[in-house]
């Protein structure tokens, strides 16, 4: 946990996942826009455009379109590649953005006041035989957000418990 100048405590979010595909293919799926369009967005969303300038200091802009029954609106995520080690490591930032990839203020689109304007993200690629292990770290989420997460988590465990009890 680190403490930054604004005195908000921050914590990192880490996700590890083993994918059943060789490293070269996984790398391609992460770095080729035509591939990224196929999986980055939430389920049932489509992606009309994705631009990736794959070099350190290069920018990406990803557009996702909500399903018709959820309004069909477009939203954008953009960022800058900070470090690229082919087949090993990708470091980039993530921000909510407009269609040109300019950052927008999260509060204006209904996010809470301490929602990060920019999330630093590191993805580590590791071959595990014919499979690939990915470790994704998102740095410096404000802790109040995390506490709300854990609150939600608690509710869920309770709901699950209630379900299992109901099934008897």
């Amino acid at each position, binding site marked *: 946990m680190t403490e930054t100048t604004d005195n908000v405590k921050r914590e990192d979010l880490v996700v590890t*996942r083993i994918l059943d595909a060789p490293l070269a*293919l996984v790398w391609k799926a992460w770095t080729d826009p035509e591939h990224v369009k196929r*999986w980055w967005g939430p*389920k049932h969303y489509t992606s009309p455009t994705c631009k990736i300038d794959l070099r350190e200091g290069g920018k990406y802009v990803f557009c996702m379109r909500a399903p018709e029954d959820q309004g069909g609106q477009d939203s954008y995520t953009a960022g800058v590649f900070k470090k690229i080690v082919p087949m090993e490591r990708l470091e980039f930032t993530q921000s909510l953005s407009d269609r040109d990839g300019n950052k927008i203020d999260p509060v204006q689109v209904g996010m*809470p*006041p301490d929602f990060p304007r920019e999330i630093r993200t590191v993805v580590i690629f590791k071959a595990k035989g014919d499979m690939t292990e*990915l470790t994704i770290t998102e740095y410096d989420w404000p802790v*109040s957000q995390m506490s*709300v997460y854990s*609150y939600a988590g608690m509710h869920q465990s309770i709901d699950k418990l209630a379900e299992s009890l109901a099934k008897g």
Partner: protein
Amino acid sequence: MNTITLSALAEPNRLRIVELLRENPYPVGEIAKRLVLRQPQVSKHLRILSDAGLVKVHPAAQQRIYQLQAKPFKELDGWLETFRRIWETRMDNLDEYLQELKEEQKRGKK
């Protein structure tokens, strides 16, 4: 998502109050004592939490007991679920897509 819920929770002391009330409903004096806050300050926070529908007050004898309300938290939960699961879902999508790509490659080689 209801931004009133989120901004009510975004203040650190209000979040502490919510976390305390998670254990048990308490009167304002008890909340102030346990969190080492001044009572007027706690009252102010409780008013905001109450306006946001996060807590409800129950009169009991001479006291007013503050209790968390489940509904806004369930709404928040639904919203956060989509949020928290972004990476999990994204990795599911990626895994499925990689299987498609592998199939395509196999067919391509034939």
